[in-house]
């Protein structure tokens, strides 16, 4: 870990009981869902992390607790530092507080996470789907959402697949 990042990680550890991991020189801090907004505000105001460059999520299905990680990649331009905050969230329809009050990046990126993973952001000013049509059922980037290949029709399953075909029947 870079020297100048150590005091910042320490603050997160003391204040929010955050744990951190390091992989290939990258620091990933685990923060609890109830602390994330406060953590982002402190990092922005007191430690010059003024650019939230990436906001995304990873689905760890079939693992259920936590099933998702919501990831905030913060950058400090002044000190040239980068820090990743990870919020583990559980369950089928998880909820998180919105970060739009701290960084406007969330306005679209949180809509994308909701669209793709079904993680709701409470208090988001415009909670609609963004990339997929509104009529779509399910959330495509979840690991249990099928990719959508067509099943090949053989003689042994001809009837079965034929039943599901959309063409007009007698």
């Amino acid at each position: 870990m870079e020297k100048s990042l150590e005091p910042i990680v320490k603050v997160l550890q003391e204040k929010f009981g955050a744990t951190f991991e390091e992989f290939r020189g990258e620091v990933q801090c685990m923060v609890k869902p109830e602390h994330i907004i406060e953590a982002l505000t402190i990092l922005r105001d007191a430690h010059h992390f003024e650019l939230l460059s990436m906001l995304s999520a990873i689905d760890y299905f079939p693992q259920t607790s936590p099933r998702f990680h919501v990831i905030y990649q913060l950058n400090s331009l002044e000190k040239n530092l980068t820090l990743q905050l990870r919020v583990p969230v559980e369950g089928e329809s998880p909820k998180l507080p919105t970060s739009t009050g701290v960084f406007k990046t969330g306005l679209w990126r949180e809509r994308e996470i909701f669209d793709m993973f079904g993680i709701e952001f409470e208090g988001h000013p415009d909670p609609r789907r963004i990339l997929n049509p509104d009529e779509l059922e399910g959330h495509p980037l979840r690991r249990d959402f099928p990719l959508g290949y067509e099943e090949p029709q053989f003689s042994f399953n001809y009837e079965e697949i034929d039943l599901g075909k959309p063409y007009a029947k007698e």
Partner: protein
Amino acid sequence: MTQLQPANVEQYKHLISERALTGETMLLNMGPQHPSTHGVLRLVLELDGEIVVNCIPDIGFLHTGIEKNMEAKTFQKAEVMTDRLDYMNTMGNNLAYVMAVEKLIDLDVPPRAQALRVILVELQRIASHLVLLGTWGLDLAAMSMFLYCFREREQILDIFELVSGQRMMTTYIRPGGVWRDVPVEFEKAVRDFIKIFPKRIDEYEKLLTKNPLFVDRMVGIGHLSKEMALSYGVTGSNLRASGVNWDLRKARPYMGYEQYDFDVPVLTEGDTYARYLVRIEEFRQSLRIIEQALDKLPMGPVRSDNRKFVPPPRSEIGVSMEALIHHFKLWTEGFHAPNASIYSAVESPRGELGVLIAGDGGPKPRRVHMRTPSFDNLAVVPELVKGHLVADLVAILASIDIVLGDIDR
């Protein structure tokens, strides 16, 4: 089959003003088939006369599920999907993805491959800015600009065809290096371009920079403040035109960018004209990088010889049993990556192109997220166009440099 619902006011109720509901202002649909939306972007505009009151972008028309598709492919095979993201920056997308994979599996790249990557990515940056400049001129009624820009872009695409066999979907940069060494004609082709291009930049500047028709439509239009840009996550030339000196090539050098001497143009005005000037200067700086990289292009291998991750060359397969096994294993099963995730970012022509990639211990990624710069750059447009004319919206949209393939993924 579910039927697509026609757009109704109900859907946008919380985004438009009261006056739209009473009929005092008008809701107008712009796009998705509109030449100056640079792709398939739909904008719902609330207009008071010709003044934009609110702008609601509607994206997703080009959504092809690239991130989901990549999860079903091995790390090597998923790379071809990255070409299709931002089709103006294929080499840059390859580089961003490949660098993330290399970081995940801890693979080194030989110096010659690094220098070649830099040359090609900088050529791609010029090509991308050329398309931007051409369409920008077209949007503001400078028709001849488009033809001039595409003439030079053609020269760059010819170089890409020379090295990779493809003009656009190159997939030339591979994990561990590049696909194969460049042909002997490569150096001459790039030198020719370096020789001719500075004169062309002057030509563009003569056409546009002081042209009153062009300047009047850009100075003071679409002011983006430093604070707003950072809050929205705007990066790249747009951020640098707002007075923030932030370029990943300088701040966190990768692929040996620290060896090259170049400047990062920064302007403080933050308007549409500043965004234009920054890009013109970036042409010159990219040329400087290409020239230096070509001058000290080292000799040596262009692919790592770590056979656990990089397939052996064809010549080895006939004589070495081990090479044949590696070839077979790598192209059927693929290599395994650790169960961890990393984030790595490069400076694309549009801004920070980041890749979040998570392995699950197997040969396929658990998750690939492409942090595409156009997405965040477009998010700020509704703020920029408020209070401007519809015609100014076209100029602002052009200056933000969006590529819809990059946004919708």
